[in-house]
Structure formats: structure tokens, C-alpha cells
């Protein structure tokens, strides 16, 4: 009796306030939650802090970051898949969570059917790195030694099926190389193991290894993508590795059932963001690129990724 009374009172008061305020019915009319399926402090978190701090100027509402780490990113994705598709809950995902994890283990959602891309914020190309005093001076040196001593050369990565693991596995698979893969918790510890001489080879994103290259602590042997990033360092394409190898895409996704007009509003806002000087300046300083790609265009990439990763996982785990 009492509880019922109180519920009525609270709801009553709330409705009264609502009618008093008479909010306009346009979307968005309340803060938008962006779910990050990783813990705080990672590169996704930092990138999200950048765009959510600039976004309010373009959507007219705050964007609230909600960190939901766990189960290799599937927990956050599952939460968004389950959320109401009203445009107030978005996911800041990566291509690995989006298209790869489902091949590794059962996922409680279906990426293709449950999510639609709002926009790709940027991508990060991977680089193959060795310590400054390493005997390897080129990709060819490394490849030769690995082939001569299969399973003896060690490589550190950021955890199984993580952002450094997948490119390492792709490289090994495509070149028929076998290295001893040592998992670390994230890219930082993997890099530290390389510098401490615990492993022979590692991978890293340009945003994290920049100063170490300048000081000569590490050498870069190759970078992902078509065009070389560093002078005199070949790109994966130069080495004959075509396709979407070693790229981590960071994109904002929405539950698939989102009303078309709301999706359009969001897509327009992210597009407008690209003209925002503060946004591009901050990204540049973080060492990230602002290679924006709009939603429909990224959508075209997803089926291909799905197939590619499916085959990758199958051939890795046979």
C-alpha cells in the first residue's frame, strides 16, 4: 500500500514536471550513451573522449561514455544489441569485435543482423617492430630467420584475438611463418616486453611507438596498408600482402532497428564533426588519423571482413 502510494507520488510528480517543461519532440532530446566495450584508458576510450567532448556542438545533446568491458568486447556489444533501438544507445566498436569474435566463440548477438554502422571515426594501421639493437634490419631478415628456426623467434601481442594478435596471425599465416606467440595484457605491456628484451618481435600502432622510433629504441620493419607510413619502411602491400590486413577500424554503431531519420541525424552529425578544427587537432596530437568513412560505405566492407576473419580463425585453429 505504502509503496504503491509512493510510486504514484513519484511518477505523478515527474509527469507534472514533464508537462510543465513541454520538451520539443525532436531527436535527440536527452543525452546519448556511447558504450565502449573496453576498460578505461585504452585507445578506444581515449578516442571516444575526444569525439564525445566535441560532439555536443553537433547533436545538441551530451554524449555519455559508458565503459562495459568483458568477454573480449562481447559484453558491451551484447548490451547494445539488447538495448532499445531508439538512437540513445550507441556502440564504439572495432572491426575485430564486430566481425571476428563471433567466429572464435558463440556470441549472444549477431553482428550483421543486430548492428548498423553510423560512421567510422578512424583506423589504426599496425607496424611490425623490433628493438633498436636487433639483428633484423628488414622484413626479409626476419622472415628468413623465422623460416630457418620455426617456433623459436618470439613475438609479443596484446592477448589472444586482440588488436595485435590478429595482424600477427595474419602475417604468419600468409607467409607460412611460425613464431612463438606470447600474450600480454594490452599493447603497452607487449611493447615493454620488446624493449626489455623478453621477446624478439612485436607489433604496435604508430600513435604509441612514435617517439621510440625517433630515439632509435625500436626499428620498424613494415607497416600495414597500401602506402608506406615511414620513409624507407615498406608497406604490407609492398611485401605482397593485399587486403584488409593489420587495420583496426574504430567505428560507431547503432542497433539495427534504429529509426531511419535518427540514423540520418547521427550520420550527419558525425560528418559535420570532420569539419571541426578542435576534433581534428586533438586526434592529430594523439597520433591518430581522422580518416573518416561514412556509414553506408563502411557497411560495404563488413561482409568481406566477416568472410575473411571466418577463414582466418578456421585456418588458425585447425
Amino acid at each position: 500500500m505504502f509503496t504503491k502510494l509512493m510510486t504514484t507520488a513519484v511518477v505523478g510528480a515527474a509527469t507534472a514536471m514533464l508537462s510543465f517543461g513541454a520538451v520539443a519532440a525532436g531527436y535527440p532530446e536527452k543525452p546519448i550513451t556511447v558504450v565502449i566495450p573496453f576498460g578505461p584508458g585504452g585507445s578506444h576510450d581515449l578516442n571516444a573522449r575526444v569525439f564525445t567532448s566535441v560532439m555536443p556542438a553537433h547533436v545538441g545533446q551530451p554524449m555519455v561514455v559508458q565503459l562495459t568491458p568483458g568477454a573480449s568486447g562481447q559484453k558491451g556489444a551484447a548490451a547494445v544489441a539488447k538495448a532499445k533501438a531508439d538512437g540513445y544507445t550507441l556502440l564504439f566498436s572495432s572491426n575485430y569485435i564486430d566481425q571476428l569474435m563471433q567466429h572464435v566463440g558463440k556470441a549472444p548477438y549477431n553482428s550483421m543482423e543486430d548492428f548498423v554502422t553510423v560512421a567510422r571515426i578512424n583506423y589504426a594501421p599496425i607496424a611490425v617492430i623490433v628493438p633498436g639493437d636487433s639483428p633484423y634490419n628488414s622484413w626479409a631478415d626476419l622472415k628468413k630467420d623465422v623460416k630457418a628456426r620455426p617456433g623459436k623467434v618470439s613475438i609479443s601481442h596484446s592477448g589472444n584475438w586482440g588488436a595485435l594478435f590478429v595482424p600477427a596471425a595474419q602475417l604468419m599465416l600468409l607467409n607460412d611463418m611460425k613464431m612463438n606467440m606470447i600474450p600480454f595484457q594490452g599493447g603497452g605491456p607487449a611493447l615493454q616486453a620488446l624493449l626489455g628484451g623478453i621477446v624478439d618481435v612485436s607489433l604496435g600502432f604508430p600513435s604509441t611507438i612514435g617517439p621510440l622510433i625517433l630515439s632509435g629504441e625500436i626499428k620498424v620493419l613494415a607497416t600495414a596498408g597500401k602506402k608506406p607510413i615511414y620513409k624507407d619502411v615498406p608497406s604490407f602491400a609492398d611485401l605482397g600482402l593485399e587486403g584488409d590486413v593489420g587495420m583496426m577500424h574504430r567505428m560507431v554503431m547503432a542497433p539495427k532497428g534504429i529509426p531511419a531519420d535518427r540514423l540520418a541525424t547521427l550520420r550527419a552529425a558525425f560528418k559535420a564533426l570532420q569539419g571541426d578544427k578542435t576534433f581534428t587537432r586533438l586526434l592529430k596530437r594523439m597520433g591518430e588519423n581522422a580518416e573518416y568513412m561514412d556509414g553506408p560505405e563502411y557497411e560495404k566492407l563488413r561482409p568481406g571482413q566477416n568472410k575473411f576473419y571466418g577463414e582466418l580463425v578456421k585456418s588458425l585453429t585447425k
Partner: protein
Amino acid sequence: MLEQIIEGLFLTLRVDTFAFMAIGLFGGMLVGALPGFTTLMAMAILLPISFFLDPVVGIPFLLGVYKGGIFGGSIPAILVSMPGTGAAVATTADGYQLTKKGKSRKALDMALFSSVFGDTASDIFTLLMIVPIAYLVLQFGPPEIFAILTMSVVIVAVTAGKNPLKGLIMLAFGLWISFIGSDPIGGMERFTFGLFELRGGIPLLPLLIGLFALPEIVKIVGRTNVGEASVATILGERLTLAEFKRCLRTICRSTVIGTCIGIIPGLGQMVAAVMGYTAAKNASPVKENFGKGELEGVAAAEAANNAVNGPTMVPLLTLGIPGDNVTAILLGAFVAQGLRPGPTLFSEQGPVVFGILIAMVFANLMFLVIGYLSIPAFARIITIRSNLLVPLVTMFAVAGAYVYRSNPNDIIVLAIFGVIGIIASAAKFEVMPLVMGFILGVPLERAFGQSLSLANGEILQFAIFERPAMVAILVATPFLAWMLRKKMYAD
């Protein structure tokens, strides 16, 4: 270098640096005091603000939030036995007992002074020894980390209570709980019974609040005449200089322990706090008072966990590698300002960086004042009468448990660990080893797996010839644990 330091000093001497630091310290303290709202979260939220400030304003601001937050976390640990992080667990042991005895202000003061002391000393040490520390950090690989973690947990388990068997049982049980979820190497499911909800593992915060706070709350709830009574009616005196001097030895010892543990990657504040506490108990002439409201216990834990902070900054500054999530956020703040941490940072941006480091030291001093003035207000919380305080504390506990991962099931986890805590206390099992096992289970297993992978099948050869330090530590562990135990429980 001296020129750069002086230039840096002048860079920091501006009103807005100090104003923002003060805001950061105070705000961080408030957020840290709310269970569930970690300092890390506060820093991530405030990071964008620092983007738009001058480097010598924005980064000290974030550092202020961090330092304030760490101390803030010990406030609920002392007042309502509710540790918000693993680092505050050792503080809870004696802090809450002091509160119950009506000495909450003394306990909070002691936490503040020893935190600031530990932090400042380790900051200055780090500033002077940055080059050797940077070298040392890289010498620890997974095998050494595995050995040191094993040593820490075994020592704590064996010395935690009167019966070493019980401590070891709780340790193994804690390790077992840490297995629930995905394994740290291959990401395969373990003990999840096919439930997706368990894939992410058992969350830390509901476990801590459940084990430490709920048994204490339930004691109050179950009391037949709770009514208008409160946890403690008096706040007690403030800390006296004599008491601080009495604990100074302990504080210094803990600072050294904390700094050393900070150098070893992957150990962190909790190990430091617990080891500092154990060492203090071992050295004290009144060992039996520990765990029953001994000021030295609070001092030992707080000095040690804050002393970790200096060395953890080293890999960030010298290599651009963040060792944990806090330093990852600081890295974001640095790079957004156009400062790229790494080997070239000091030669390129010397004055600014020294300015930031000097601001860190100023922040500590300023925090003494801010903290000292705020403590009476916080301490007053426990004078609220129980039938208002208990519902409030419960609300914070459940909200904190939820907010950590936005998962309502975590509230059920909270209740389950509350029951475990009550059973453990009825059967006289210490919960500290369980928490150690749970928190360190994942890094321990990861280091174990990494070492095995590195050995590449030749385990003995690898251990003896390439990693003799690991073997030495592992062999020494049982003897060391036995010696400490004998000394602590001589009677």
C-alpha cells in the same frame, strides 16, 4: 638539467595551475569517496577538460584528481568498512576498528599524512633516480613477476591469521574465484556454466563491498536495539604530533616497500599496501593490536600504496608506455597537449615536464591542507543515526556495484559475497588472502602461462639458466614465509 628544473618551477608558479589543482584534488577526493566511482572513471571523464587547458595547468589538474581520489577511497574504507579498490583493503583492517572505537578523525588524519608522505617521498626519489628506474623496470619479465607475485600471496596468506592453513585455503579459494570467466591466455570459458553473464568474470567492486562492508552492516542490522544509535557517537581527537612520530618508522618502511613494488611492473598498489601492512605488523612490539584498531596499521597501508605512484610514472615518461589505466589516461593528456612521452621527452620539452613534476610535489603539499580541512566534515557521517545511515550506505553500495559494469546482476554478486563474508567471519577465516588471491589470480596465471610459453618446452633449462632470479625467489618463499610467521606468532 638544473636550469630546466628552475625554468619548470617558474612555469608552474601561476595562479590557475594552483586553482585547478585545488579543484582537482577536492573533486577527486569527493569522487574517490563514493564507492563504485573510481578515480579512474573521474580522470577519464575530466580528461577532455585538460585538452583545452595549458599543459602546466591541465596535467596537474588531472594529477590532482588522481591523488585526491586515492585518498578519497580510504575515507569510506575507514568510516564504513567499504574499500572501493584493492588498494584500500589493508586500510580497512584497522581503520574501521578505529572508527568503532570513536577515533575516526585520528584514523583519517593518519591516512592523510602517511599518504602524502609516501607519495611525496616516492615522487622526489623518482625524479632523482628516473634513469636507473627506467632501466630496472625493463629487467622484470613474466618469470620474475610470477615469482614475486607468488611470494607476496604466500607471505600474506601464511601471516594473515593465527592458522596458516586457513590463510592458504582462503588464498586458493580466491584464486579459484578469479578463474571464473575467460582464461587470461586463451580467452576460453571456465566455470561459467554456460552463462554469458559470467564470461566477464566476477567483478572486483561487488566482491570487495560484499566481503568487507556487508558483514559490518549486517551486524548493525541484526542488532535488536539499533534504533537511534549510530556507529560511533564521538569523532575523537585529531592526530597528535607524538602519534605521528611514533608511526614515522613504519611510514618510512612502507614508503620504501611501496616504491620498490612500484618499480616492478604489474604488482600495483594492493600488493604494496598489504606488504607494507605485514611488514609493520612484523616489526611492531604490539603485534596483537593489528586488526583491532592500531594507528600504525593505517599508516603502513596508506604510505605504501601511495608510494607506488612515483615509479609507475617512469615507463610512461621515459618510454611512453602506460603501465596501468591511470597512466594510460595521463598519456592521453600528454599527447593531446603535443607532449610525446618517450626517450626524447626531457630533451625536447624539459622545462614543461619538470614543471609538471614539480607541480606534483606542490599538489601533495596543497592536499595536506585541503584534506586536513575536509576530514571533520567527512568524519561526521558516522554520527548519523543507524536507521538513516544504513539505508544510505546500502544505496551507495548497490549503486556502486551496478555502476562498475552497468550490470544489475552484480548486485546479486554483491549479496553473495556478503554471505561469504559473514560465513568466513563466523568460522574465523581471514578474507584478506581471498581478496589477494582474487585480484592477483589473473596476473599470476598470465605470468605463469607467459613463462611457460617463453620456455618453449624446455622448462628446467629455461628457469635455471635464463631466469635464475625467478628460481631464487620461488625457493626462498617458503622459508621467508615461515620465518615471518614464527616471529609474528611467537607465543
